[in-house]
């Protein structure tokens, strides 16, 4: 196998979330930006370009998330995307699909987690995206909202 450098396939893309992102009102447009000098290729920044509103809070101008492609850190990762999602995102083949997962950074880094239960599913042809909300529990899916980052002895 050739030496592959990790890469997030949708870096540079503009994403449109018709239904917004749970927890934020008005969060419909995002860009995926490389994180120069900070885990480039493994991590990216998902930055919202809209002004968003959070319940009982002032409008938010700078909403952004640390994200990764789940396959980079969890090679065995897979999720069953339901028919509704396939239809809503106009997914016509497996090649259309890209996924990102949101990381919850904590200190120390080894305590950080990622939401593998509810990945962001993207149509890489059109930029249509949505956070998948499974209709079954975390136990049934086999992935948690707060899955620990994989660590080895150097972490």
């Amino acid at each position, binding site marked *: 196998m050739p030496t592959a450098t990790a890469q997030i396939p949708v870096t540079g893309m503009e994403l449109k979330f018709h*239904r917004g992102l749970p927890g934020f009102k008005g969060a419909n447009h995002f860009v995926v930006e490389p994180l120069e000098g900070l885990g*480039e290729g*493994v991590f990216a920044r998902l930055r919202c370009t809209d002004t968003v509103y959070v319940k009982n809070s002032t409008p938010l101008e700078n909403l*952004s*998330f640390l994200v990764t492609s789940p396959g980079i850190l969890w*090679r065995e990762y897979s999720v069953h995307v339901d028919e509704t999602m396939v239809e*809503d995102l106009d997914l016509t083949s497996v090649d259309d699909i890209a996924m990102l997962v949101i990381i919850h*950074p904590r200190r120390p*880094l080894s305590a950080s987690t990622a939401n593998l239960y509810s990945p962001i599913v993207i149509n890489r042809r059109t930029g249509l995206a949505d956070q998948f909300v499974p209709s079954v529990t975390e136990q049934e899916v086999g992935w948690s*909202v707060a899955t620990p980052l994989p660590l080895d002895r150097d972490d």
Partner: protein
Amino acid sequence: MLSLTREVGEKIVIGDDVIVTVISVSANGRVRLGIEAPKQIRIDREEVLDRIRIENLESANATPEITVDAAAWASYGARRANAKAKPPSS
């Protein structure tokens, strides 16, 4: 809160294009609903969506802090970028 009594097979119309149908009610009190709505409307179980909402909010709040630990994230990322083609470490 508006409270309506409906029987199995009866519907409730919300606005112009949301229709909720009572499909069945089991002996143990479980109610099965059918919902027809435009696709831009989210329809999810409340407890599941709340968990995801809270996780999204907390993740967004914690994200600016990665600059504090930038060196740690950079070295973690670099190790993973290079480890990708290697077999998993034990």
